[in-house]
């Protein structure tokens, strides 16, 4: 899949400025508006990518968990996070860590809704996957391997729509 530039949801909340207090809460709120570059309806917070945020007087450090080790969107996410936090007026360090494995349990309820809104079934064992369009259980997996590492291909026999499902991992 083509990886577009990750973007802040436009026009919702103004980005931080040097006057915005750099607290962990404010940093996390800003990260909540950084969207996954391949799933524009889900923020990196709702996707469960944010492992740790540390704010010190001389820098902001964010630790993220890759969904898949080879995910090619990581560098885009890194630069988007760096840009999004630039307004706090101190150096930003973004690191990826495997300290705990990212698993699909890390998705928040809002993240699961966001996946459905993008036409992607939230992760479930194949027997429990539901069509993101009509919620039917009459679905079949076409292939475990879809257009990105984290997605499988399904077909809905009810509404006759092919769709993607996030792989349970």
């Amino acid at each position: 899949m083509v990886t577009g530039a990750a973007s802040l949801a436009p026009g919702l909340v103004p980005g931080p400025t040097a006057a915005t207090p750099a607290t962990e809460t404010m940093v996390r709120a800003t990260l909540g508006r950084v969207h996954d570059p391949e799933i524009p309806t889900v923020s990196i917070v709702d996707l469960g990518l944010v492992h740790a945020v540390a704010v010190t007087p001389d820098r902001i450090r964010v630790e993220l968990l890759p969904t898949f080790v080879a995910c090619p969107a990581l560098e885009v996410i890194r630069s988007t996070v760096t840009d999004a936090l630039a307004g706090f007026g101190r150096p930003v360090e973004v690191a990826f860590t495997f300290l705990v494995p990212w698993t699909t349990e890390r998705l928040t309820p809002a993240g699961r809704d966001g996946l459905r809104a993008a036409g992607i079934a939230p992760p479930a064992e194949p027997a429990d996957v539901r069509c993101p369009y009509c919620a039917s259980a009459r679905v079949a997996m076409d292939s475990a391997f879809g257009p990105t590492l984290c997605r499988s291909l399904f077909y809905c026999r009810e509404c006759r729509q092919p769709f993607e499902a996030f792989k349970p991992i």
Partner: protein
Amino acid sequence: MDFSGAGDGRERALGLLLLSMADDEFVIGFSDSEWTGIGPILEEDVAISSLAQDELGHAQALYGLFVDVVADGRDADAVAYDRPPEGYFHARLLDHSRGDWAQTIARRWIYETADAARLAALAASSHAPLRELVAKLRREERYHLMHVDTWLDRLAESGGEPRRRLVAALAELGPDAGTVLAPLPGETALVRHGILAESWAAIESRWRAETSTKLIRLGLDALPATRDPGAARTRHSDAFRLLHADFTMVRRSEVGATW
């Protein structure tokens, strides 16, 4: 092996382990990526490309751990791309070319099952960065195993030409199958420091029991003993030298460039 920066026995043994694993994933990932665009069916084209991408990502992460341990000033890209063919430390199994689809499946099945046995022996490793990465890798490799197991069954049970080709591939690869788990120098240090749970011989024997059960159930021969196990990861083939020329081509075209 050039290990000028390595310190005590633990670091050297750990470095060799990480490099062997990274090279395995890198070589099979690059080799399998040759199917992109020419897979036997579209679905498999996507699947093998996805698998190859996974392996390259795993290699990148493992090279990252390697440079942290060896700390000789090279970065992960330099280790991946700047060695001559003789400097690579992958298992001889991966010196075979991808061949036809049956050979690719046979090679993947042998490699994935052996790699799973290796990762299981590292799941409780005392080297925390490796233990953490292995936890992540095992979640992804589950999909690789499901994929290749399904294909092995399909080729073996279909009879006719698919089965003939699979049998031929297993016969060609068989003597090198055990090279993935052949003992590495520094095994004693790895086990003593709790990096590896048990000896390579113990890991290999468990893997052989599991693979034999599966192969015999499919009416195929168990994998034979390893040919020349002392040179399991050295003396590479012409097929690998060609692959190496291919995967270093862009890097060599503009030395020192930032991509």
